[in-house]
């Protein structure tokens, strides 16, 4: 047992860190530091920089353009990326549909889609959630009926993140409504967003942003060749996909970057005659949060190290800890930022490209309340924290 990084791992970390320092465009870094949203172009630019280096999808098998990094290297890469802070590679492509395609798709699908995902030639979005379903994903209602070499799709998806930028959507659709269990009779379909009958309605989120959408399918014709794997087996692929999603969901790198930012801002911001960071109550809240974050980092490393000994299609149920604690800590960092900004949390300045006016209050204060509001979602999505505790109780504790 040696919990320190090896020299090789440290060298790898330094290489990754240097690459991000030298290649991440400054304008993107600044947006992330201020908690602002990046644009479609920002994401495409960044993905192509990573792809040119061979790092757009490092966890993919080498034959599909991935790397041979072990779980610890994958972890280091990801955390350095978040701490830079750089945008995460768009997960809908590289972390969700990509692995489903290379694991369950046919050769033609692999050849066509995988390189385009890595290079962000296609922007993907996810069509799983439906208005009536929520955490009970399998109760979805969107129908796909086979007619000759096409499916005709009707229904509605919701919470489609960044769907407004998307070229393609991967969907769970019901192909057999008479299956004995709701998890059966679901298929995994790839749909071109430009298909006639696809319409998108933006959902304005409580932070004032436009990040998620509703998507309506009205007699949409989808070529049968866009079915992934077997018909009616889609639930298996979805479970595989959601298992992958849980990896790295702790987002330790983001929280570390925020903790550093809190310390920086609180050193500059005065509370009374002295910097806020010297206020005992504030500094001790920060220290207490750092303890939880450090503990979670160690827990994450344990799960990562354990992954070396695990079959990759069996996600560790302990990763539910990462989701629960990770989301709680992310939320706590936004609360502490709210404490830092104090009364200047109040003004609301909508993000607009090309705005010339100076903001109300300090520039760094603009996005703090919206980030706090918006971060409430992290304990809801990707399997709510209540669902995660059910998983721990059942899968780990046997209750």
């Amino acid at each position, binding site marked *: 047992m040696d919990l320190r990084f090896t020299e090789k791992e440290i060298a790898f970390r330094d290489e990754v860190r240097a690459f991000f320092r030298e290649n991440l465009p400054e304008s993107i870094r600044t947006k992330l530091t201020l908690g602002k949203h990046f644009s479609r172009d920002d994401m495409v630019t960044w993905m192509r920089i990573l792809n040119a280096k061979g790092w757009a999808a490092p966890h993919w098998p080498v034959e599909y353009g991935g790397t041979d990094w072990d779980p610890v290297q994958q972890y280091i890469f990801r955390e350095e990326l978040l701490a830079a802070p750089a945008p995460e590679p768009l997960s809908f492509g590289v972390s969700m549909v990509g692995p489903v395609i290379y694991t369950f798709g046919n050769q033609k699908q692999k050849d066509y889609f995988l390189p385009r995902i890595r290079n962000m030639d296609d922007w993907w979005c996810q069509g799983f*959630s439906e208005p*009536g*379903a*929520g*955490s*009970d994903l399998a*109760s979805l209602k969107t129908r796909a009926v086979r007619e000759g070499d096409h499916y005709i799709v009707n229904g509605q998806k*919701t*919470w489609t993140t960044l769907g407004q930028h998307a070229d393609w959507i991967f969907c769970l659709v019901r192909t057999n409504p008479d299956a004995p269990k709701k998890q059966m009779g679901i298929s995994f379909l790839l749909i071109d967003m430009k298909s006639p009958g696809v319409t998108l309605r933006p*959902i*304005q*989120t*409580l932070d*004032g942003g436009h990040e*998620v959408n509703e998507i309506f399918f009205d007699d949409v014709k989808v070529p049968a060749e866009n079915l992934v794997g077997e018909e009616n087996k889609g639930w298996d692929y979805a479970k595989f996909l959601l298992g992958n999603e849980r990896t790295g969901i702790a987002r330790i790198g983001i929280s570390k970057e925020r903790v550093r930012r809190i310390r920086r801002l609180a050193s500059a*911001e*005065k*509370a*009374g*005659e002295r910097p806020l960071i010297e*206020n005992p*109550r*504030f500094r001790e*809240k920060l220290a207490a949060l750092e303890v939880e974050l450090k503990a979670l980092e160690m827990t994450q490393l344990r799960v990562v190290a354990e992954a070396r000994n695990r079959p990759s299609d069996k996600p560790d149920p302990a990763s539910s800890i990462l989701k629960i604690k990770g989301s709680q800590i992310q939320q706590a960092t936004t*609360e502490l930022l*709210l*404490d830092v900004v*104090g*009364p*200047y*949390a*109040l*003004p*609301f*300045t909508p993000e607009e490209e090309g705005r010339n006016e100076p903001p*109300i*209050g300090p520039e760094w204060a603009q996005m703090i*309340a*919206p980030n*706090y*509001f*918006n971060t*409430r*979602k992290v*304990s*809801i*999505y990707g399997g*709510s*924290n*209540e669902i995660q*505790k059910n998983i721990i109780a059942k899968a780990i504790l046997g209750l």
Partner: protein
Amino acid sequence: MDFDLNDEQRMLKDSVEKLLGARYDFDKRRRISDSPEGFDREIWSAFAEMGLLALPFSEDDGGMGGGPVETMIVMEAFGRALVVEPYLASVILAGGILRRAGSPEQRAEHIAAIAGGETLYAFAHHERQARYDLHDVATMARADGEHYVISGEKGLVLSGDSADRLIVSARSSGNQRDEAGISLFLVDAKAEGVSRRGYATQDGARGAEVTFDNVRVPASALIGTRDEAFPVIARVIEEAIAALCAEAVGVMADMHEATVEYMKVRNQFGTHIGSFQVLQHAAADMFIALEQARSMAMFASMMVQEEDARERARAIAASKVQIGNSCRFVGQNAVQLHGGVAVTMEYKVAHSFKRATMIEKLFGDTDHYTTRLADLGGVIGE
């Protein structure tokens, strides 16, 4: 000891709730908030007609002679409906200053104007560097013969963009963080040298940055005693906090009811989510937090009249701490129990959550008042 409303108070409660029920549903509130002025002058007139704008003023000043309990009743109803009209700014803050420190002439003129509803007032006090310290005032008021010349910047002027008249705090002597040396002045919002930049607030209301560039006012614009405004400001902010506590109770009660209702109708895994014990207990915990807040809002309303300044300060600090903790707990859980829908602007609970969050921050946050209460030796007493 008596927690019951008297007949008049019950009538007040009924009529405010009836008005808001009929004319201030969630859609209407969204439209009002999205409008250019960010509030509705017709509703404001209705408040005036009902006497709400005259409520806390003495009958001698042409008011209704209401006390903190009456304000509590109105603010709780406003909280439920997420009212964005400038009641806090014009009636509680500016009105409070005038009521407590205005000369008979000032009271005769301005309280009537506030109560009538045609003229809007705002309190320009908070400055960027002050954070939560009420005595931190850098804006200067220089005496110049029979006039004062005011210069400085006020950052968070609630409802300041639509106000016709501003009550401005400025330093007439002493150093930036002295309690002594602060004075209050009445300034026309369109006076030369006053410039404003209005903005929306996170919770759907309005604020303004106001800059005073050598604004010249006559000596008669001074409210109260020169250099001795601080106790007045502190007292009025205490009244505003008591009012905010009541508003918070309304906001939370509405969020809690909406959550419980949602749990009864939202189906997942083949049953309504209200049947899951973990969610039931979360709703029970929210209820406890709400009732504890309600208790402290009552306590604040009772104690804001207390003449012993130290006892009053303890009570207000303790109330703000409880309200802040409850706002955070109830708000976060309301969002969590609603799930995805609560992070969209289309559900009222998102707006309520934002208002609850901002109430936590207004006039000093939970940390600020926890420290202050500790400095004051707690609230249980000997």
